Protein backbone atom coordinates (compact mmCIF):
# COMPACT_ATOMS: atom_id res chain seq x y z
CA UNK A 1 0.00 0.00 0.00
CA UNK A 2 1.38 3.43 -0.98
CA UNK A 3 1.18 6.19 1.62
CA UNK A 4 1.82 9.89 1.09
CA UNK A 5 4.47 11.08 3.56
CA UNK A 6 4.80 14.85 4.15
CA UNK A 7 7.52 16.75 5.97
CA UNK A 8 7.52 20.27 7.42
CA UNK A 9 10.03 22.80 8.75
CA UNK A 10 13.43 21.37 9.73
CA UNK A 11 12.21 17.78 9.22
CA UNK A 12 11.60 18.70 5.57
CA UNK A 13 14.98 20.42 5.30
CA UNK A 14 16.87 17.44 6.78
CA UNK A 15 15.11 14.92 4.54
CA UNK A 16 15.55 17.19 1.54
CA UNK A 17 12.05 16.98 0.03
CA UNK A 18 8.58 18.17 1.04
CA UNK A 19 6.79 14.88 0.40
CA UNK A 20 7.00 11.46 -1.19
CA UNK A 21 4.89 8.37 -1.82
CA UNK A 22 6.18 5.24 -0.08
CA UNK A 23 5.11 1.63 -0.49
CA UNK A 24 4.88 0.32 3.08
CA UNK A 25 6.30 -3.15 3.88
CA UNK A 26 3.76 -5.45 5.57
CA UNK A 27 5.55 -5.28 8.95
CA UNK A 28 5.04 -1.49 9.19
CA UNK A 29 1.84 -1.17 11.24
CA UNK A 30 2.36 1.86 13.50
CA UNK A 31 3.92 5.33 13.36
CA UNK A 32 6.88 3.99 15.36
CA UNK A 33 7.32 1.14 12.83
CA UNK A 34 7.31 3.71 10.00
CA UNK A 35 10.01 5.80 11.68
CA UNK A 36 12.20 2.69 12.16
CA UNK A 37 11.64 1.71 8.55
CA UNK A 38 12.50 5.19 7.23
CA UNK A 39 15.68 5.28 9.36
CA UNK A 40 16.77 2.12 7.49
CA UNK A 41 16.24 3.85 4.14
CA UNK A 42 19.10 6.36 4.26
CA UNK A 43 21.25 8.90 6.10
CA UNK A 44 18.82 11.79 5.55
CA UNK A 45 16.10 9.92 7.53
CA UNK A 46 18.55 8.93 10.27
CA UNK A 47 19.46 12.59 10.53
CA UNK A 48 15.84 13.82 10.63
CA UNK A 49 14.70 11.19 13.15
CA UNK A 50 17.90 11.16 15.21
CA UNK A 51 15.98 12.56 18.16
CA UNK A 52 12.53 11.21 17.41
CA UNK A 53 11.18 12.73 20.68
CA UNK A 54 11.44 16.09 18.87
CA UNK A 55 9.35 14.94 15.90
CA UNK A 56 5.54 15.17 15.96
CA UNK A 57 3.23 13.23 13.67
CA UNK A 58 -0.22 13.59 12.14
CA UNK A 59 -2.10 10.77 10.41
CA UNK A 60 -4.68 11.93 7.90
CA UNK A 61 -4.27 15.47 9.34
CA UNK A 62 -4.92 14.50 12.96
CA UNK A 63 -2.29 14.69 15.75
CA UNK A 64 -1.42 11.13 16.88
CA UNK A 65 1.06 9.22 19.06
CA UNK A 66 3.87 6.89 17.88
CA UNK A 67 1.74 3.87 18.83
CA UNK A 68 -1.06 4.83 16.41
CA UNK A 69 -1.79 2.31 13.64
CA UNK A 70 -1.26 3.57 10.10
CA UNK A 71 -2.34 0.53 8.05
CA UNK A 72 -5.33 2.45 6.61
CA UNK A 73 -3.65 5.87 6.45
CA UNK A 74 -3.63 7.91 3.25
CA UNK A 75 -1.32 10.65 4.55
CA UNK A 76 1.31 10.73 7.31
CA UNK A 77 3.02 14.03 8.20
CA UNK A 78 6.19 14.51 10.27
CA UNK A 79 7.09 17.91 11.75
CA UNK A 80 8.65 19.68 14.75
CA UNK A 81 6.46 20.91 17.65
CA UNK A 82 4.29 23.73 16.25
CA UNK A 83 5.29 27.38 16.76
CA UNK A 84 2.50 29.49 15.23
CA UNK A 85 0.53 32.38 16.66
Amino acid at each position, binding site marked *: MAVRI*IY*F*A*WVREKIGRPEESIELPAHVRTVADLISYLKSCGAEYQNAFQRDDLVRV*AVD*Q*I*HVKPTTEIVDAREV*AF*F*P*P*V*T*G*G
Partner: protein
Amino acid sequence: MAVRIDTVDFNIANEIKKLTANRSDIGAIVTFTGTVRGATKSGPLASMTLEHYPGMTERELSTIELEAKKRWPLTECAIVHRVGTLLPGENIVLVITASTHRHAAFEAAEFLMDYLKTRAPFWKKETLRDGTAAWVDAREVDETAIARWQTT
Protein backbone atom coordinates in the same frame (compact mmCIF):
# COMPACT_ATOMS: atom_id res chain seq x y z
CA MET B 1 -17.35 30.93 12.67
CA ALA B 2 -14.54 31.93 10.34
CA VAL B 3 -11.01 30.67 9.81
CA ARG B 4 -8.65 32.10 7.20
CA ILE B 5 -5.03 31.52 6.18
CA ASP B 6 -3.68 34.47 4.23
CA THR B 7 -0.44 35.76 2.74
CA VAL B 8 -1.61 39.40 2.86
CA ASP B 9 -2.21 41.63 5.89
CA PHE B 10 -5.57 42.00 7.65
CA ASN B 11 -7.32 45.14 8.92
CA ILE B 12 -8.75 44.54 12.40
CA ALA B 13 -11.58 47.06 12.00
CA ASN B 14 -12.70 45.39 8.76
CA GLU B 15 -12.50 41.90 10.25
CA ILE B 16 -14.66 42.97 13.22
CA LYS B 17 -17.13 44.61 10.85
CA LYS B 18 -17.51 41.33 8.93
CA LEU B 19 -18.59 39.59 12.15
CA THR B 20 -20.73 42.30 13.70
CA ALA B 21 -22.24 44.39 10.87
CA ASN B 22 -25.95 45.10 11.40
CA ARG B 23 -25.97 43.25 14.73
CA SER B 24 -26.95 44.69 18.09
CA ASP B 25 -26.86 41.52 20.22
CA ILE B 26 -23.15 41.50 21.03
CA GLY B 27 -21.93 43.89 23.74
CA ALA B 28 -18.31 42.74 24.05
CA ILE B 29 -15.61 42.16 21.42
CA VAL B 30 -12.07 41.05 22.25
CA THR B 31 -9.25 40.86 19.72
CA PHE B 32 -5.76 39.46 20.00
CA THR B 33 -3.12 40.43 17.45
CA GLY B 34 0.28 38.79 17.35
CA THR B 35 3.04 40.78 15.64
CA VAL B 36 6.62 40.05 14.56
CA ARG B 37 9.15 41.25 17.12
CA GLY B 38 12.35 42.81 15.83
CA ALA B 39 14.60 41.36 18.53
CA THR B 40 15.41 37.66 19.05
CA LYS B 41 17.63 35.88 21.57
CA SER B 42 20.26 35.55 18.85
CA GLY B 43 20.17 39.11 17.50
CA PRO B 44 18.14 41.55 15.41
CA LEU B 45 15.61 40.00 13.03
CA ALA B 46 15.53 40.61 9.28
CA SER B 47 12.37 38.59 8.60
CA MET B 48 10.16 35.76 9.83
CA THR B 49 8.89 33.04 7.48
CA LEU B 50 5.77 31.08 8.37
CA GLU B 51 5.11 27.63 6.93
CA HIS B 52 1.93 25.64 7.55
CA TYR B 53 0.22 22.33 6.71
CA PRO B 54 -2.59 23.25 4.28
CA GLY B 55 -5.74 21.30 5.03
CA MET B 56 -4.73 20.28 8.54
CA THR B 57 -4.38 23.93 9.58
CA GLU B 58 -7.96 24.81 8.65
CA ARG B 59 -9.18 21.60 10.28
CA GLU B 60 -7.35 22.28 13.56
CA LEU B 61 -8.42 25.93 13.72
CA SER B 62 -12.06 24.98 13.09
CA THR B 63 -11.86 22.35 15.85
CA ILE B 64 -10.39 24.90 18.26
CA GLU B 65 -13.13 27.41 17.40
CA LEU B 66 -15.84 24.80 17.88
CA GLU B 67 -14.39 23.91 21.28
CA ALA B 68 -14.39 27.61 22.31
CA LYS B 69 -18.03 27.94 21.25
CA LYS B 70 -18.88 24.89 23.33
CA ARG B 71 -17.23 26.31 26.45
CA TRP B 72 -18.33 29.96 26.27
CA PRO B 73 -21.50 31.73 25.08
CA LEU B 74 -19.90 33.32 22.03
CA THR B 75 -21.98 35.05 19.40
CA GLU B 76 -19.07 35.03 16.96
CA CYS B 77 -15.43 34.20 16.65
CA ALA B 78 -12.80 34.34 13.95
CA ILE B 79 -9.16 33.43 13.39
CA VAL B 80 -6.93 34.87 10.67
CA HIS B 81 -3.36 33.58 10.41
CA ARG B 82 -0.76 34.79 7.94
CA VAL B 83 1.86 32.63 6.23
CA GLY B 84 4.86 33.53 4.09
CA THR B 85 7.61 36.03 4.84
CA LEU B 86 6.86 38.86 7.29
CA LEU B 87 8.93 41.83 8.45
CA PRO B 88 9.40 43.09 12.04
CA GLY B 89 6.27 44.91 13.25
CA GLU B 90 3.96 43.09 10.79
CA ASN B 91 0.83 41.26 11.93
CA ILE B 92 1.00 37.44 12.22
CA VAL B 93 -2.31 36.35 13.72
CA LEU B 94 -5.70 37.77 14.65
CA VAL B 95 -8.27 36.21 16.98
CA ILE B 96 -11.67 37.85 17.47
CA THR B 97 -14.30 36.79 20.01
CA ALA B 98 -17.72 38.39 20.47
CA SER B 99 -20.14 37.75 23.33
CA THR B 100 -22.77 39.45 25.43
CA HIS B 101 -20.39 39.00 28.41
CA ARG B 102 -16.93 40.55 28.51
CA HIS B 103 -15.39 37.81 30.65
CA ALA B 104 -16.53 35.14 28.18
CA ALA B 105 -15.01 37.11 25.29
CA PHE B 106 -11.71 37.56 27.17
CA GLU B 107 -11.42 33.94 28.30
CA ALA B 108 -12.36 32.51 24.91
CA ALA B 109 -9.79 34.69 23.12
CA GLU B 110 -7.06 33.59 25.52
CA PHE B 111 -8.14 29.95 25.14
CA LEU B 112 -8.07 30.21 21.33
CA MET B 113 -4.54 31.64 21.39
CA ASP B 114 -3.26 29.02 23.86
CA TYR B 115 -4.65 26.20 21.72
CA LEU B 116 -3.55 27.76 18.46
CA LYS B 117 0.03 27.99 19.76
CA THR B 118 0.18 24.31 20.72
CA ARG B 119 -2.11 22.58 18.19
CA ALA B 120 -2.23 24.48 14.89
CA PRO B 121 0.43 23.28 12.41
CA PHE B 122 2.44 26.45 11.81
CA TRP B 123 6.23 26.76 11.97
CA LYS B 124 8.29 29.93 12.18
CA LYS B 125 11.76 30.41 10.74
CA GLU B 126 13.72 33.47 11.79
CA THR B 127 16.22 35.08 9.45
CA LEU B 128 18.57 37.40 11.33
CA ARG B 129 20.12 40.55 9.94
CA ASP B 130 23.51 38.80 9.86
CA GLY B 131 22.02 36.32 7.35
CA THR B 132 21.74 33.26 9.62
CA ALA B 133 18.38 31.47 9.73
CA ALA B 134 16.90 29.09 12.31
CA TRP B 135 13.58 27.45 13.09
CA VAL B 136 11.94 28.76 16.25
CA ASP B 137 11.81 26.22 19.11
CA ALA B 138 8.45 25.42 20.72
CA ARG B 139 8.15 27.09 24.10
CA GLU B 140 7.66 25.06 27.26
CA VAL B 141 5.53 27.92 28.62
CA ASP B 142 2.93 27.46 25.85
CA GLU B 143 2.40 23.87 27.01
CA THR B 144 1.93 25.17 30.56
CA ALA B 145 -0.56 27.78 29.33
CA ILE B 146 -2.73 25.16 27.67
CA ALA B 147 -2.73 22.87 30.71
CA ARG B 148 -4.97 25.20 32.73
CA TRP B 149 -7.87 24.78 30.26
CA GLN B 150 -7.75 21.01 30.68
CA THR B 151 -8.63 21.13 34.37
CA THR B 152 -11.69 23.36 34.00
